[in-house]
């Protein structure tokens, strides 16, 4: 290297200029990264959905789209409801106490996780990694399910199992129960999904 002594004033200015340039570079990156955010159009598409459930028979499920996600409306049979309390010991969060603000609104924080005991309204997306669990209503032994299966849902992606109230079983990849979306009854048979009567 050369023997010329270091001009410290020149070096100071070089560092200062470099820093100023870096600030400019970072500032320029902001608009580029910002384009990755959901567009205004995507943000606006979150309106509540109204559903008529008068045609829904016990044991049937209706699926509606809300915010791009499937929302299940299931009319449970009396037998399915009767099986729920007995499962508590096998469930990860039987009383829906984990992150209640995200997964279970206050009016669904009960044994059947619903406003009306027979009608379950749940987002059909597994809290693990976002697959939609398949219906496995038939009780009894079957592939990927335990022998004492009482009916519920099986996530095809990673094998999480849920009971008929969307509560996750212990030791499964999903840490949480299925999300109950905000919803309310406009009349006895008309449901509004996406909004509720917040006090």
């Amino acid at each position, binding site marked *: 290297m050369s023997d010329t002594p270091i001009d410290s004033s020149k070096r100071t200015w070089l560092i200062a200029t470099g820093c100023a340039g870096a600030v400019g570079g970072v500032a320029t990156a902001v608009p580029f*990264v910002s384009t990755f955010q959901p567009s205004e159009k995507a943000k606006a598409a979150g309106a509540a959905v109204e559903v008529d459930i008068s045609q829904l028979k016990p044991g049937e499920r209706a699926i509606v789209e809300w915010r791009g996600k499937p929302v299940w409306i299931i009319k449970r049979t009396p037998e399915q409801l009767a099986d729920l309390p007995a499962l508590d010991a096998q469930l990860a969060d039987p009383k829906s106490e984990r992150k209640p603000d995200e997964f279970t609104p206050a009016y669904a924080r009960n044994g059947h996780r619903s406003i009306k005991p027979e009608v379950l309204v749940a987002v059909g997306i597994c809290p693990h*990694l*976002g697959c939609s669990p398949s219906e496995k209503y038939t009780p009894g032994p079957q592939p*990927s399910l335990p022998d004492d299966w009482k009916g519920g849902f099986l996530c*095809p992606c990673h094998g999480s199992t849920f009971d008929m109230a969307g509560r996750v079983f212990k030791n499964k990849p999903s840490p949480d129960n299925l999300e109950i979306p905000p919803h309310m009854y406009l009349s006895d048979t008309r449901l509004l999904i996406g909004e509720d009567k917040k006090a």
Partner: protein
Amino acid sequence: MAEFKEISPNASAGAKLTNWFENRFPTAFDAYRVHMSEYYAPKNFNFWYIFGSLALLVLVIQIVTGIFLVMHYKPDAAKAFESVEYIMRDVPWGWLIRYMHSTGASAFFVVVYLHMFRGLLYGSYRKPRELVWIFGCAIFLALMAEAFMGYLLPWGQMSYWGAQVIVNLFAAIPLVGPDLALLIRGDYVVSDATLNRFFSFHVIAVPLVLLGLVVAHLLALHDVGSNNPDGVEIKKGPKGNRWSPNAPADGIPFHPYYSVHDIFGVCVFLMVFSAVVFFAPEAGGYFLEYNNFIPADPMVTPAHIAPVWYFTPFYSMLRAITAEMMYALVACVVLAAAFGVFKARMPVLFKGIVAVAAAVVVALMLAIDAKFWGVVVMGGAVIILFFLPWLDNSPVKSIRYRPSWHKYVYAVFVVNFVILAYLGVQPPSPVGERVSQVGTLLYFGFFLLMPWWSAKGETKPVPDRVTYKAH
């Protein structure tokens, strides 16, 4: 600047033309010499050394077929699936270009896995080739990103739900995760916005990164020179061969010796490749999954979803991490820390740091969901490869001179990797879960315990020169 070369007026027209160019663009001629005609590779390469060139060939196939596919494909959630069917049915020969591209993706991973295994066998990642290996691992990572984003483009059921699962992996990261996943998707679910940006990444951004990394991989390789099946440094051996007095005696020019050798390999490869493209482009659902011939439906996940075969070993490890498995992992951390504190010889301060770090890790492991740790394990399974040069403590590079039982260790590793891959395509089952948990421990055990096991056993004497029989 290079000296301007005068040429005899009696020289042939060809020689005059070459000279004209060499005087005006010497860099190209130097590059040809440095990387082809005067790049001296060890003369004892075996068939394992074909896969690097083949990977380059597949890269070219993917780029060329990709350019032609983009001419007909529409990156729009409403039209994407249709446009792929249009390529398959209406574009003249479109089916061939598309099948070449889809088969090329699987071929890329076949070739790259074999190429990486070659490196493992002969210690090609050891000093001074650490950077060659690291660039290679970065290529592997970029390739995974490229394959994953490309798989969304046909907008089939598997495309959609595969992307949904992988993007949600990022949401598992504490604090920033959900916002990060939102930033990747550009919407609250995988949607048109996601498709468009994945298209952009797949056709422009990642290929550029990939090409840059390939150049770095090759330049670094040609700087340090190729390893060989004996793991002997030819540059440290005697000098002088038929072509140059300064070249390593055991080196032969890449061109024409290995270029011809590679052309033979290319012919064999193309036979297999064409057989798949023409007779089994779906490869029984492994290269193109049957569910992907159903258009994406955000309301229903297909009954059985699995990634394409090349991701399945890592996917199995993701699935293996359940709340129960976390106790096994906590036990591993505690054991490792206890070993460090009670058995290893190091200053008390380090022991304190190890104990505290282990306590923090265990606390985090118990506090954060298994879901996040599944993601960490899956990512870690790839990232750990980068550290291989510093994990291997064996006094010799090549498997040829390692203790014989090392071959069994490698065999267990390979069989385990294949079992994990197999389990990844199967639907979840209790037995499969247990096996994949054991497999995950074996996979990480292979790497994390390598500093110990690789140093054990009696090595065989390494020859001074490469072993080579003329044929």
